[in-house]
């Protein structure tokens, strides 16, 4: 009787704990999907079809300097997001990134068209691509 109660307790602990952890991770995944939908981090067709900007350590370093100068205020110094979204593992095309930098987004992000030219945008894109995990 004592043994069966012990086994029941351990089984219940494993089931409840596993369910709680699984539910939390599933909820997190759902929230990420919802956030990705609103911040355009889901893969788009052009992301798969368009060639990515060639990068080099120098270009990435230059992009990081520009990022810290203009973008870190909203996206965080490590680009993990603050007022603006997390920019790691972006699943959008280079053209989309360039469009975002040039035109911004109404009420959310200003345009940097006057501040950054094509070379700067390439450097910024290279830096953002360097934040991808794969």
């Amino acid at each position, binding site marked *: 009787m004592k043994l069966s109660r012990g086994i029941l307790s351990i089984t219940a602990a494993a089931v409840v704990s596993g369910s709680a952890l699984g539910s939390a991770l599933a909820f*997190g995944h759902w*929230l990420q999907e*919802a956030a990705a939908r609103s911040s355009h981090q889901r893969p788009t067709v052009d992301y798969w079809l368009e060639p990515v900007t060639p990068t080099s350590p120098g270009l990435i370093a230059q992009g990081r300097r520009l990022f810290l100068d203009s973008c870190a205020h909203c996206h965080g110094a490590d680009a993990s997001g603050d007022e603006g979204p997390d920019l790691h593992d972006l699943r959008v095309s280079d053209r989309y990134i360039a469009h975002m930098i040039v035109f911004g987004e109404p009420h959310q992000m200003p345009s940097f068209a006057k501040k950054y030219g094509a070379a700067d945008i390439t450097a910024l894109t290279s830096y953002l691509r360097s934040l991808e995990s794969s």
Partner: protein
Amino acid sequence: MDSTIWAKAHGATTHFPLALALCSAAFDAAGFALARQPIGGDLRAAGYWTMIIGAMGTVPAVLSGLLMTKGTVLGHDALRMHHVYVWPAFALVVALGTWRLFQGRNATRQAFAGYLILAGIAAGLMSAAAYWGGEMMIAR
């Protein structure tokens, strides 16, 4: 809606399970050591309730954290370190609370010694998670 509401909610909810789990481990360890004295039973009772309430308290803490980070389950840098400790701590504290609830006062001394080791590990994991949570606050 206030965009910082979940950050505030996380700050408000996260300290309860942390404090309760640490207190529970301390009460139970003391109760285990003083098992032959009258106060031993009281300490075990205090350890029981603090673990049960602490395990229940992990749910709002985890939910508010997920909502605050828009569902990030690992993240980067300090947030990653926070999560590396949070997830095993969450699973372990819920498991310990559930085991305690089902087992009641019927655990053998040997089983309770095993529980105490796991409660100590859970307290360590929660403290490490809290440390990295604090690092994030300082960074901001």
